[in-house]
Every structure is written in structure tokens, then in C-alpha cells.
């Protein structure tokens, strides 16, 4: 290694994913990549998590994996056993019912998490210190707790039924699991709201104040409407992440697609089916999440231009 090379080696350090990228480089050839990476990092910081970087190629890779799985299973088909495609087809109605359940859980958790998260986000910018600090603590507690741990807490701490005025209302497992998923969603939405409100230039507040708007009017009529389009991309990103996380509830015994797949596999008792079946599950999630991810990317690009 030359002297110049070792000089570079001293300065080169691996950047962590959430670190701001240096704005300058002494290697001009890196500049295009630097701006691209800076953009990607900015998006991930807004989302507070890794973003999906799906490309059509990912779909192709998935399909190839699926086909290989099928081929491998097909090769192991014993005489007298139904073919792999036939088996998949047979189980598809059951699996899809499970998948719809995943979607239902994701929709309910997202709706509940968003509504409570909006309140929590506004509480985080309250002028009252106890409200602000309480909201901050709640947000960060649920944002930094592992999803699976929250899920277990909800499963085992919530009662399986409640009695109100002598009427017994059962709380099914799936509802408890949904609540468990709604908690981290709530915390993430809260941060999205806070971040968006604080990203609006202070001159908008000043301008509103000079026109005699009070704080509530300013937030409601001037600041929040401008926040919505900033919040939409990270919110959709969060939904995609949530949808993929719904398979976690299989661990606590809710009959969604993942559990049903496992049950189907044990009923068939053919090891060759493993890869095919799990690829099939992946395929359905991909089909649902991929358009959301692409749409998010498009929205981000459009709002970046219009801002």
C-alpha cells in the first residue's frame, strides 16, 4: 500500500446507517452515489426505520425462489402423491383466509395506532410541561420496546373477558394481539406527527401570530394541513412494516397465514413442501406490500419537488 493509500485508510471509517453522511468528499467520483445515499438516509431517518427498497428484480428473485422450491418438492414427489402445485392449490383457500386475517389485524392495529398516535404526537408539542414530558416518555417507551415483547405483554396481561354491568364481553386473542401491535404503531405515529410539525418553518408560526391567530387555530388551520403530505410517506412505510410484522402473532397462537401454513405442513407431513409453502407466503405478502412501497416512493418524490 502506498503512502497515499494508508493516508486514506486512516480517514476512512465505516458509517453507521443512521449517521449523517459527510457533505463533501475528496473523491469526486463518489458524489453521485453520495447524494443518492444521503437521500436514502434522510428517508430512513424520517421513517425512523429501515425503508423497503423493493425493486421489480426482488419480485423476480422471489418468483425464482418459489419455482426452485416447487421444483425441488416436485422432484421428491413419490408415486401416488399429489403434485406440489396441486397441494398448494388445495391449501390456498385456507391460507388466503389466514392472509385476510393478517390484513384485518394490520388495518385495525394501524387505525387504532394512528388515532391514538395523533393525540400523543400533539401532546408531545404541548405547551404544558407535564403533558409534553408524559407524551414523550410514552412515545419513547413504546417506540424502543421490541414488538414481540409488547405482544406477549398484551397477550398475557389482558384478561380474556371483561364484565361490564353484568355483561360478559370476551376479548379474543386476535384482538389482544392487534392491540399489542397497535402500541408500537401509536408510538411511531406520534413521532411522525411531532417530526412533521417541527419541520414546518417557524416563520409560518410567526406569520400566523402576526395575523392574530391563536395557537389552536394556528396548529389546526395552518400547521397541520401542511404536515399531512409530509406525514403520508413515513406513515405508509410504517403500515408496510406493520403488515409484515403481523406474522408475529402466529407465535402467540393466532390463526393467521403463518400458523395455518405450519398446520398445513404438518398435516401434509412432506418435508419437500417447506420451501414451496413459505415462498408462497412470501409471495402473497410481496403482492400486497410492493405496491404500497412503490406508491410511497412516488409520493416522496412528488412532495420533494413541490415543497
Amino acid at each position, binding site marked *: 500500500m502506498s503512502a497515499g493509500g494508508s493516508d486514506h485508510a486512516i480517514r476512512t471509517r465505516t458509517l453507521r446507517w443512521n449517521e449523517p453522511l459527510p457533505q463533501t468528499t475528496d473523491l469526486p467520483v463518489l458524489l453521485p452515489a453520495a447524494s443518492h445515499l444521503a437521500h436514502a438516509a434522510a428517508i430512513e431517518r424520517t421513517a425512523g426505520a429501515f425503508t423497503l427498497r423493493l425493486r421489480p428484480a426482488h419480485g423476480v428473485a422471489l418468483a425464482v425462489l418459489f419455482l426452485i422450491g416447487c421444483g425441488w418438492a416436485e422432484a421428491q414427489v413419490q408415486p401416488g402423491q399429489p403434485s406440489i402445485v396441486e397441494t398448494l392449490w388445495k391449501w390456498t383457500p385456507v391460507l388466503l383466509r389466514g392472509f385476510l386475517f393478517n390484513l384485518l389485524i394490520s388495518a385495525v392495529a394501524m387505525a387504532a395506532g394512528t388515532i391514538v398516535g395523533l393525540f400523543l404526537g400533539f401532546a408531545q408539542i404541548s405547551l404544558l410541561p407535564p403533558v409534553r414530558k408524559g407524551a414523550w416518555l410514552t412515545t419513547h417507551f413504546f417506540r424502543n420496546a421490541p414488538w414481540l415483547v409488547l405482544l406477549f405483554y398484551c397477550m398475557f396481561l389482558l384478561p380474556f373477558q371483561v364484565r361490564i354491568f353484568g355483561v360478559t364481553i370476551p376479548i379474543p386473542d386476535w384482538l389482544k394481539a392487534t392491540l399489542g401491535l397497535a402500541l408500537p404503531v401509536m408510538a411511531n405515529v406520534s413521532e411522525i406527527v411531532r417530526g412533521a410539525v417541527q419541520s414546518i418553518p417557524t416563520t*409560518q408560526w*410567526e406569520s*400566523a401570530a*402576526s*395575523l*392574530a*391567530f*391563536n*395557537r389552536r*387555530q394556528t396548529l389546526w388551520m395552518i400547521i397541520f394541513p401542511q404536515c399531512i403530505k409530509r406525514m403520508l410517506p413515513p406513515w405508509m412505510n410504517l403500515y408496510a412494516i406493520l403488515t409484515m410484522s403481523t406474522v408475529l402473532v402466529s407465535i402467540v397462537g393466532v390463526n393467521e397465514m403463518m400458523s395455518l401454513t405450519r398446520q398445513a405442513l404438518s398435516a401434509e407431513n412432506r418435508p419437500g413442501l417447506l420451501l414451496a409453502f413459505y415462498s408462497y407466503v412470501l409471495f402473497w405478502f410481496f403482492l400486497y406490500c410492493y405496491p404500497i412501497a412503490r406508491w410511497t416512493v412516488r409520493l416522496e418524490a412528488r412532495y420533494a419537488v413541490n415543497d
Partner: protein
Amino acid sequence: MSELPAASSDPIVDIHDVYQSFGKVEVLKGISLSVPKGGVVCIIGPSGSGKSTLLRCINGLVPIDRGSIRVAKFDVHKLLTDQEKIALRKEVSIVFQQYNLFPHKTAIENVMMAPIHVLRENKDEVRVRAVALLKKVGLSEKADVYPGELSGGQQQRVAIARSLAMRPEVMLFDEVTAALDPETVKEVLNTIRALAQEGMTCMLVTHEMRFARELADTVYFTDGGVIVESGPPADLFDRPVKERTRAFLSQIL
């Protein structure tokens, strides 16, 4: 520090010995000035001399440490509650250097918002007034256009119309042409000129010396948080007394 006797016996803005600081940085160090009703006052001076802060103090956006500010019937330095500040801001309106229009509202909605939601006036009456105001600033045909599609000069004229919609007694202009290119500066200055000639009380922080000379009754030169010199534009621009004023004017004229 020199202080001119007010041209009118009844000043609408009366500032006395105002001190203001941001943390340890003292921005205003004893400013006194007064503006008669219908008067036009220009404040000039180098950047960081506290000109913009002074304007923000006048409509209560920035609290002062010491001294007194009276605008119309309000003692600005004593206003504590939001209701009091809101009452003041109906009388005094400020136009900013960066326009600060609301980007999610069209030009006419920008003008109509505050009268409808703050003054609680009838929407149809406000619309009639907003149309007239946009006509006055020469933007009738841009009423339904969003700020993002307007030029800087057009946005600034919408901002002036938005302030006027509150029917203020006093208009404050904070370097309203500083962010504009020379051609559009003219259209904004023409708007302000028309206002001044109609008898609106105006206070302008500006770097447009020719405009200040033409329009102002009194020009104040500030530096380092104090008023160095003041007087009618003919005196201040042509026969400045203080060395600091001469140095500043020789730099920019």
C-alpha cells in the same frame, strides 16, 4: 441619541427607551421614537443593528426587557395574555421579508383567512373585500393561484393584501424587498407608496434608500441597537451630522 418632536401632537406609535436582548446578546439598547398617525417612518442601518427586532417588538412578537411601547390604545409592553396580544395584532400588521404566505391556501384564501377566523366576519363580505384588495395590489387574476406558482414580488403583494385585510391602523414592513430581484422590487414599492399616500401609518425597515428618501417623513439610522441619527430624509441623506451615518451612507449610496 437624537429624538425629533413628533409631527403630530398625537403619535400612534410611541416607543420609549426600549431594551431587548436574546440571552446575553443585547439587541436594542435604549431606542426611542414616535410615529404620528398617517406618518411614514423608515429605519435604515447595517445588518444586525436591531431594526427587524424593533418591528417585532412593536406588534408583540418579541417581548422587551425594559422601556415602553404604546401603539394606539395598547401598552404593548404590558400585554400578557394571548387575548391582549391578539387585540393588538388586529391594529398592527407586519409584512415579512420572506412573505410567509400559507402555501396550502390560494392567494385569496390567504387574504380571507384571518378576517374570517380571527375577526369572525361574514365570509361573503370578506370575499368582497379580499377581491378589492387583490385588485389594489394588481393581482386580480391570480386570486385562485397557490403561492408556489407566484413570483416573489407577487407573493409579497399578496402578503401585503393579507395584512391589509385585517384593517390595521399601522403597517410594519420588514425589509420586504430584500429577497426580490430589482424588477419586482418596483411593483412592491409602488404598492407601499400607494398605501402611504392614502394615509396609512407605515414603518419600514429598508435598504431602498431612494425609496426612503422619496416617501419617508422621518428616517432613523440605527447601529448597534441605538438610534445614531434621525431626521427628515433631505437632512439625513444630504447633510448627515454623525460620522457613523456618513460612513454607512457612503458605503451604499
